[in-house]
């Protein structure tokens, strides 16, 4: 299975900061009113950001659903 990675759709992001607040590993930061994946190497793919992003602008790809 392909390796997991955290991706983002900057066009849809409104910079609300919900993902930044919920991220347990401080992977995300707000820069110029948009979320930026600043430290992708720290990401543990918990899915908190994807679960609560109101704009479907951040998501995880790869891996299987059970992982």
């Amino acid at each position, binding site marked *: 299975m392909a390796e997991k990675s955290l*991706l983002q*759709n900057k*066009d*849809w992001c*409104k*910079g*609300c*900061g*919900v993902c*930044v*607040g*919920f991220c347990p590993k401080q992977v995300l930061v707000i820069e110029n009113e948009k979320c930026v994946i600043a430290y992708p190497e720290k990401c543990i793919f918990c899915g908190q950001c*994807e*679960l*609560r*992003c*109101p*704009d*479907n*602008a951040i*998501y*995880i*790809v790869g891996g299987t659903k059970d992982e």
Partner: protein
Amino acid sequence: MTNTNCNEMTQKYYRVDRMPHIWCPGCGHGTLMNTVVRAIDKVGLNKDDVVVVSGIGCSSRAPGYMDFNTLHTTHGRALAFATGIKMANPKLHVIVIMGDGDSSAIGGNHLIHAARRNIDITTIVFNNNIYGMTGGQFSPTTPYGDFATTAPFGNIDKAFDLCSLAQGAGATYVGRGTAYHAPLMQKLIEKGLENKGFSFIEGLSLCPTYYGRKNKKGNAFKMHSYFKDNCVDIKVVEKNPEKGENKILIGEFYNSPKTEYTEGYQVIIDKFQK
């Protein structure tokens, strides 16, 4: 133009060419809309068999982004239209998405009568405690004492408990989740979809732009955290009643299937066709 820069669920169930949606940054409606879509996916409904109906308001923009059979109707009348759809074709899975003003103010009567009939419609209310689209007027669910543009000195009306209202009116499945408790919300909607009868699920949403700003609730993350700290599941309160003091109750409140309306109607039709 197809936008593929999003997850599989979004590509499958959303009209991505309509995105990004119009809701304000941090609005809880987007999160709740995702719970609806995930629940439909989990239950495994065919997209063509699902009809999503809405009225007017911020929440009612949701079906515009969802790739099912959708209908955006008049203020408060979503359930009236949905009743017509269900009666005309009882095989369809009819889902109604309404806001708090839509469902409990102008559409309050439709809500109680749809519940009384126990017609098989899954009603999901995105409750953000305010009329967001029109500029932050207080709604029937704005808590007592809270501020709104039309209540600059505090709201003197008492808020509706929508779940109790729906249950009292005859809904056979009633539950409440929040934008923070997204997995619970999804579970409630799944069970609501599976219930043959009127299911009412209230999703507490957040409006950082009007309700949040007027009441100094902080940013969207702080409003999510408020739900985290102040909501208690009904199952916990049943065991330890003191844990529910001054808290918002969430979870499955009522689940008691009864005869469904279109089935009752079919019995009458069959009687005359013999």
